[in-house]
C-alpha cells in the first residue's frame, strides 16, 4: 500500500516514515501542498495523510485539489491545530477523517487501513 505523508515538520515526517516503514507500508513524503500535488500527478497513492496548517497552500486547499485530481485517493487530515470549523470544512470537502496530533501510531494505522479499504486497496 502506498501512503503519502504531507507535513512541513520534518521531524514528524521522519518519525512517521520510520514507523510506517516497519509495518511494510510504502511511504512517500512531501513538505508542502504543492509538492504533494506534483507527486500525486505522477504516482498512484492509496492514502494521503495531510497536515492542515502549512506554509503556502494549506491542507484544506490541498485537499480540494487532491479530490479534483484523483477523487479515489482517500485523505486523512492530521493536525496539531484543533479547530472545529476546519474539521467540518475538511470533512465537507471529502476528507476520510480528521485526526489530532499526537496520534497513537496504531490508531493512525487502523485509520489508514480503513481508508485504503474504501479506496479499493486492502493489503
Amino acid at each position, binding site marked *: 500500500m502506498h501512503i503519502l505523508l504531507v507535513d512541513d515538520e520534518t521531524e514528524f515526517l521522519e518519525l512517521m516514515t520510520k514507523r510506517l516503514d516497519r509495518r511494510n507500508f510504502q511511504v512517500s513524503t512531501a513538505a508542502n501542498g504543492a509538492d504533494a500535488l506534483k507527486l500525486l500527478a505522477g504516482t498512484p497513492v492509496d492514502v494521503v495523510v495531510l497536515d492542515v496548517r502549512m506554509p503556502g497552500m494549506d491542507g484544506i486547499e490541498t485537499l480540494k485539489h487532491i479530490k479534483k485530481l484523483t477523487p479515489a485517493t482517500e485523505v486523512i487530515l492530521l493536525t496539531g491545530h484543533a479547530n472545529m470549523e476546519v*474539521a467540518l470544512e475538511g470533512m465537507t470537502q471529502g476528507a476520510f477523517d480528521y485526526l489530532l496530533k499526537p496520534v497513537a501510531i496504531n490508531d493512525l494505522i487502523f485509520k489508514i487501513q480503513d481508508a485504503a479499504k474504501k479506496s479499493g486497496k486492502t493489503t
Partner: protein
Amino acid sequence: MAGFFRALGKLFGGSKPEPASPAELEALRAAYRARCESFRRLLAANNAALDVMASMEEALRGLKPFGMTFVRGQCARVAANVFQIVRQLSLLTSGRFDALYDKLKEIQARIAPHLAPRSGQVRGPLVLPLEQAGVDLADEVGGKVASLGEVARRLGRRIPPGFAITASGYQRFMAAADLQPEIDRRIQAADASRLDEVFALSSALRSLILAAALPQDLEEAILASYRDLEARTGPGVRVALRSSAIGEDALGASFAGQYHTELNVPAEEVLSTYKEIVASKYGVTAMTYRLTRGIPDEDVAMCVGCMAMVGALAGGVAYSRDPLDIRAGRVVINAVAGLPKAVVDGSFDPDVFVVERGEPMVLARAEIAAKPRKYVCDPVEGIALVEVPEDEAQAPSLSEAQALEVAALARDLEEFYGLPQDMEFALAPDGGIVLLQSRPLHQTEAAQAATPAAPQNAPAEPDVLVSGGTTASPGVGCGPVCVVKKDADALSFPQGAVLVAAQAHPRWAPLLSRAAAVVCEAGSAAGHLANVAREYGVPALLGVSGALERLAGAGDVTVDADNRRVHAGRVEALLENRPAPRNLMEGSPVHAALTAACEHIVPLHLINPDAPEFAPGHCRTLHDITRFCHELSVREMYLAGNDGLEGFSKQLTSGKSKLKYWVIDLEDGFKEQVTGRFVDIGQIASGPMLALWRGMVAVPWAGPPAADAKGFLSVVAGAACNPELDPTMATTFAVKNYFMISREFCNLQSRFGFHFCTVEAQAGDDPQENYVSFQFKGGAADLSRRVRRARLVAELLEERDFRVEVREDALFARLEGFDKAATLDRVAVLGYVVIHTRQLDMAMANDGLIASLRDKMDKDLNGLLTATGLSAK
C-alpha cells in the same frame, strides 16, 4: 433503496425467489458490502463521539486540570466524528436525512464563539512611559505596572523613571514571528499530566521565543524609549526589567514569583532580556499554574516594565498588614542593606521592623539580623553578592525614621487601593523611599492563628514522626512520602504522594496539583508555595525541623496540618472529616468555555425513538444527532425494509430455539450459503463471533445477583426474574443484539434494557492487525453503583491485558497486537463479561458482595482460557 431490498430479498431467499444473473449478483454483493462498511464506520464514529463526550463531561467535574487546547481538541474531535456518522447514514439512506448536515453546522456556529480567544487585539502604542500608565491602562501594561503608574500619577509617590512595553507590543512580537499557532500546536502535542513532558515543553517554548526575531518597529520603539530614559537619568543607565502579566488577575491569583525579573541590565541587553521575560510566560511553574487554574494561555499577555536601576542603600518588602494575622494593626517590614533582592527570594535573614498603626505610627519592634553579605549592582555581572565589614553587618538596614516612612507608604497604598498591600521598596542614595512594585497581599486563612501550639521536642504519641512548624495551609492529607531535592525528583513525583522538601521553594509549585500534602523544613506561610498550597487546598506544614531525616522512607504518612503533626501510616480518624477535593477549574475561563460548549454537545433530548420528536429537526445537540443516526442506521440495517422485507439480517438460532440475536454476514462469516431468515450457530464460521459466543454461554447466567432492596428499580425487577433472559433462550424481552461478522471479524451491538455495549474484534493470522475493543455504558441503578460496576469490570479486564479507561459509568477497553489464539481468548472473556455484568450495577452497594462476585468472576474467566495462557495474575 427499496429496489435494493427487493433485489436482496430475491438474492438471499426472500418471499419470491427468482434466479439472478451473475453480473446482478456481483453488483448486489458489492452494494451490500459497501452498506456494511458504512454501517461499521458509523458505529466506530458513534463510539468515538460518545467517548469524547464522556471525557468532556468528566473534565467538567474539574478534578483534573485542562487547557483551551483540550476544549478545542475535544470539540473538533466530536464534530468530525458526528460528521462521519451523518455521512455514513446518508450513504445508507440515500441522503434521506441530509438536513442533519445543516444541523451540525448550526450547532458548530453556536459553539464557535466560546472557543475563540478572548483577548481582543489591542492596537495601542507598543511602549508607554511609566508615569502615563495607570489602572485605566491595565489592559495594556499589566496589573503590576499599572498600579505603579497609578501611585505615581495619583498619589505623587516616587517610582523609578521608566517605560512599559505593552500588551500591544507583546502581540506585535507574537504576530510578527507567527508564534502563537506554533505554541498552541506544541501544547496540543504534549501530555500535560506528565511532568517530564511539561518540562520539555517549557524548555522548547522558551527557546522558540528566544529564537524569534523582534519586529523592527517594536525594536525601534523600545530603543527610542531607552534613549529618552538615558536623557532623563544619565548615559548608559542600567535598567530593571519586570514582568507584568495581563489576564491572570481576575481570580485573585497568587502568581508572585512565577515570572522573571532581571536587574541591572545594560543598554545592549535590553532587547534580549525583553525576550527572556516574555519567554518566562512558559516557565514550568507559570504554565502549570495557568493550567490548574483554567487560565487560557492566549489570554495572558506579557507586558514588561523597564525601569532605571535605583542604586539602593537598602531595600526590602513591606506588608501593610501582618500576613499571618491580617486583623492585627501592624505593618511588617523586612529589609536588608543593598538591593531588596535578598528579601524577595529569601536568600538570607532580613531585619524585621514591626510598626504599630495609629496616630502617630510607632516602631514597636526591630529585630536586627546579622547580614554579612549584600547584593549590589555590578557593571559586569549585573548584580553581585558582596561581603560587608563586620560593623556594617550588624547595623540596622533602616533608621527608625526610614522604617516609619516605609510603613506610612504601605498604609497609604492600602488606603488607596482598599486592600492590604505587599510592596517592594528601595532606599535611594539621596535617602528617599522609592516604590518598586506593589500588589494585593495574599491573605492567609484566619483560622490558623488560633491553632494550638504543638510540642516542639520529642513527640509524645508513638505514631507521630515529626511535629511543630507552621500551618501554611490547613487540612489533613495522606500518602506515601516522596522527598524532593532536585528537578529530577520532581519528574518522578507520584500522584497522591506527600511532598517533603528542605525548602518551600516556588519551583515545587507544579507538584502541588498532584500532592496529598506538603512538609518542608524551611519556608514561611507568606511564601509562594504556601499561597499555591492554600489555593489548591493541599495541607501544608512548613518549618518542620528534621522532617527530611525522619520522613524519608517512612512510606505512608498522615499529615495533620491543623495540629502540626505527621503520623505514621494512614490515620482514618483524622482523614474522615476531610473536605471533598476542590474543583480547581470551577469558575475559570477555561471551565466556562467547556461548560458553554458542552451545552450544545452533551445533553440528550431525543430519548424516545417512537416519539414524533425523534427527527432531524429536533436535534439540538451533537448527542441528539448521534443518537438519531445510530437508531436510524440500526433500523436500516436490521429491521424491516420499507417494502416489508426483512433487512439483510438473519435471526440466530440454536437448534430449535430462536434467539434474540440477529446476524449480518459481511462476506465470509457463514460456513455455507444460508437461505431463509434464520442462521444457526452451527453455520457460523466467524472466529471472533464463535469465541464471543463461547464466553457468553460458558457459565449459565444465574440471573442478577442478589441485590439490596434499594438497588432494584421496579421496571427491571420483573424482567430480572425471567428465565428467558438467558442469552441462549428465546425471549420476548426487549433485547436487541446484533452481530456483524466475517471470518476474522465480529462486531456485536448489544442493548439489554438500559445497558448498551459494543464488542468489536479482528482475529486473523497477522498479530499487528488484530484487536479487540469493548465499550459499555448505562444500567438502571444510580450513578455511583454504575461507576462501581465499571471499575470492577475494568479491574477484571486490566488483569487480562486490556487497556481500560473508565469515565463515570462508561468503560472503554482495547487490546491489540496479540496472536490469533490469544486474541480469541480475550474475545471470549468479553462474551462472559457482556452477559454476567448486565445487572451487576444493582448489587454494587455492598463491598463484601462486590468482593465475592469478583472472586467468582475471576474463577469463571480463568476457566474460559484455552491453552494460550492468559496471564491470570
